[in-house]
C-alpha cells in the first residue's frame, strides 16, 4: 500500500512556497523567484527519476525516455494523464498537454485580466506555479541523460503545455 497524503497538503505547500519566493524572499525579482522554484522542482524530478528507474534498464533513445516521463512517471506523480505528446524532431522539441488542476475559471481569469496590481500578482503566481513541474520534468530528463530546457505555455488554459527543448 503506497503511502499517501491529501492533495491539499501538496497544493498548500506549493502555493505557499511560490508566494514566499515571489512576495517575501525575492519580492520584485520575479526571475530570481522563478529560478528558485524551478530549482526546487529540478531536485524533486532528479530524485524521483532515480527512484523510478532503479530497477529498469536504461532507455534506448530520447523518445523512449520522454514517453516514460509522460506516461508512467507523470501519472504516478500527478494522477493525471498527459493528453497529447507532439514531437518536432527537427527542432528536438516536444510538447505535452496536460489538464491543470484547480478552478479553470479562476486561473484563466487571472491570466487574461492584468488590469489591477493584485490580479497581476495572481497571473504571475499562476505562471510561477508552473516553474515547479517544469523543474520536475527537467530534473527527471536530465537524470535520464537528456539535458533540456522546459517551459510552460498557458495561453490555452485550463490546458497547459510543457515544451521540452533537448540540448544537443
Amino acid at each position, binding site marked *: 500500500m*503506497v*503511502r*499517501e*497524503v*491529501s*492533495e*491539499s*497538503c*501538496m497544493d*498548500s*505547500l*506549493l502555493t*505557499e*512556497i511560490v*508566494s*514566499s519566493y515571489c512576495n*517575501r*524572499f525575492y519580492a520584485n525579482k520575479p526571475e530570481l523567484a522563478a529560478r*528558485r522554484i524551478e*530549482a*526546487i*522542482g529540478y*531536485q*524533486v524530478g532528479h*530524485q*524521483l527519476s532515480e*527512484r523510478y528507474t532503479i530497477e529498469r534498464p536504461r532507455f534506448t533513445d530520447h523518445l523512449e525516455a520522454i514517453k516514460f516521463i509522460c506516461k508512467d512517471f507523470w501519472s*504516478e*506523480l*500527478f*494522477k493525471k494523464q498527459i493528453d497529447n505528446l507532439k514531437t518536432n524532431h527537427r527542432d528536438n522539441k516536444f510538447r505535452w498537454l496536460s489538464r491543470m488542476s484547480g478552478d479553470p475559471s479562476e486561473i484563466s481569469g487571472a491570466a487574461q485580466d492584468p488590469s489591477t496590481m493584485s490580479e497581476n500578482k495572481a497571473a504571475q503566481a499562476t505562471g510561477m506555479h508552473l516553474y515547479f513541474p517544469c523543474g520536475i520534468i527537467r530534473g527527471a530528463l536530465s537524470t535520464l541523460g537528456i539535458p533540456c530546457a522546459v517551459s510552460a505555455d498557458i495561453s490555452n488554459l485550463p490546458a497547459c503545455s510543457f515544451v521540452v527543448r533537448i540540448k544537443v
Partner: protein
Amino acid sequence: MAPVVPRSGDAIFANVERVNSELFTLTYGAIVRQLLTDLEEVEEVNKQLDQMGYNIGIRLIDEFLAKSNVTRCVDFRETAEVIAKVGFKMFLGVTASVTNWDAEGTCCSLILDDNPLVDFVELPDTCQGLYYCNILSGVVRGALEMVSMKTEITWIRDMLRGDDAFELQVKLLKQVPEEYPYKDDE
C-alpha cells in the same frame, strides 16, 4: 432533522483527493534544502518554515471545518484530540496522540511516531539547530488562531535529532471570545 455527526479522520481521508506521499516528502525536502541555500542561517530557515506553516494553517482550517463537521469544541482538551485524530489524519494520513496535560488543561503534547515529512530524511551535521518539521508548528498555530485560540508551540522531541518520536508542545495562551467570522467589508 438528524444532528450532523463529526466524521472520523479515516473516513475523511478516504474521501479526499490524495497524492503519493513520496512527491510530498521530496518536495518538502527540496524546499528546506533551497531555503538553507538561500537564507543561509538555520534560525532564519526555522522562522520561515514556521511562517509558511502559519500561512498554510490559516487556510487549511477552512477545509478542516468543512470536511470534518466538527462543531465547536467544548474545551482545549477536545481541541487537542480533534487535531491529533482528525486533523493530522485527514491531511497527512497519520494520527497523533495527545499526552502530558498540565493541571489547568491548557498545555499538552502532540506526539507523532510516524511522519511523512521525514521519510528517508537524514540531516547532515551542518544543519545543527534546524527544526526540519517546523512547518507543522506553524500550521497548528495558524489553524488554531483562526478558531480564536492563541497558542505557543515548541518542539520537545525531534526524531531527526535522535529522539524516538516527534513531540510538539501546544500551550494555549489566550482564547478570545467568539467573533462573527465574516466581516462586512470583505
